[in-house]
């Protein structure tokens, strides 16, 4: 598992390298959430909007939006496909994004149209994830995008 101080990123997930959404392959479906690095940078989640079940989303396009202490913006799909399930629990209690990012804090499940094609630019594999996490941490600290030091 990749780790930097209190941030950890499980090895079995795929990560969007810019927006820090994670994707987990579950059969032909993909569960999507925000990784621990992303939630630390975003701050406390306060409001989440997600497109309804049945909508088709394109990779890199918004499937919803997040308002948090340090981030207001879109949640961008890591893969193309149809939304088959949304997490109403996280909509009702956005703080789950912070308290349980890889568990109850997930956003949507997408029926992926072409997972193998969509994952080519996602970060995967223990060494790759660790290297990416270290680089991201350094970049965010230099730019002052994390509050704590």
């Amino acid at each position, binding site marked *: 598992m990749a780790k930097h101080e209190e941030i950890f990123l499980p090895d079995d997930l795929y990560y969007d390298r810019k927006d820090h959404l994670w994707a987990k392959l579950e059969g032909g479906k993909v569960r999507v959430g925000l990784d621990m690095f992303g939630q630390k*940078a*975003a*701050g*406390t989640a*306060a*409001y989440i909007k997600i497109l309804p079940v049945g909508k088709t989303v394109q990779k890199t396009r918004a499937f919803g*939006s997040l*308002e948090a*202490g*340090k*981030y*207001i*913006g*879109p949640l961008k799909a890591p893969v193309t496909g149809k939304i088959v399930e949304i997490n109403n629990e996280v909509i009702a209690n956005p*703080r789950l994004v912070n308290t349980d990012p890889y568990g109850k804090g997930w956003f949507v499940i997408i029926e992926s149209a072409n997972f193998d094609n969509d994952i080519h630019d996602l970060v995967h594999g223990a060494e790759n994830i660790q290297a990416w996490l270290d680089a991201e941490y350094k970049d965010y600290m*230099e*730019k*002052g*995008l994390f*509050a*704590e*030091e």
Partner: protein
Amino acid sequence: MRKINFYAPGLKRYETSELSQKNAHSFMPVSITGSDCTLNCDHCNGELLKFMRPAKTPERLLQICQTLAKNGTKGILISGGCDSAGRVPLREFFDSMRMVKQTLGLNVIVHTGLVDREMAKGLKHADIDGALIDIIGSDRTIKDVYHLDATTLDYEQSLANLNACEIPVVPHIVIGLHYGKIIGEENALAIISRFKIKTLVLVILTPLLNTKMENVIPPPPEEVKDFFRKARNMLPDVQIILGCARPMGEYKEQVDKLAIDTALNGIAFPAEGIVSYARDNGLKPIFMESCCGFAPSAMSNEQ
């Protein structure tokens, strides 16, 4: 065509379908006390300070600002917790603030808390671009929420001291500060109206986790609208802006529209759809990545 300003400074990363930042770290907050605050007011409890970079010594402040400037930051907000007298302990930082401003070329805006004459002179020496101060119009709120042995006269005197030293000051009013109730806000407007002020920022009580107000209900949008109207009527020549702090989600969408309906002059981090709403109401939107209190006015031809 009347203009309206929309601000997205680097205090948050921000992107909607209508507006997005080019530089997410153009304007950064720093706390000279870290997350420490003697008052631990009921609405904040030091929680807001946790989002700021800690710089507890003048040397550390300079060091942080050097790094920020190198990475494209254009301005900083120097904030911090208060001492027991309601003042941010800024005195030992005046020289380093001056260096940040004059050597690094960053805009320097300061959260002051209460300001005595000596602090106002120090801020003048520091050559800051402006001071931000929350004006509270109710002695009861000062006592109950801030736990502070002060009165509204102390806030009025703070404005007088800043004005006397010709420091640009942008007063803020927190609507609903008294546990979600609007009780002293109109008096705060009256206080502000007695001074030379170009810009007023209105924010709305946002219940924060780990504070005594985490379960408080913010003032209803209709009451907020009434207060926007009062502010507009009492201060017709002052630029009035809806600032960063306000509850999110549907509440924010409502009050942002009300800000436009009541002819406020700007909105920080507007909700999705508000830029279109402004256009539909005949306004010309102007986008800025600077702090709303010190950007060119929407009421002038400066832009």
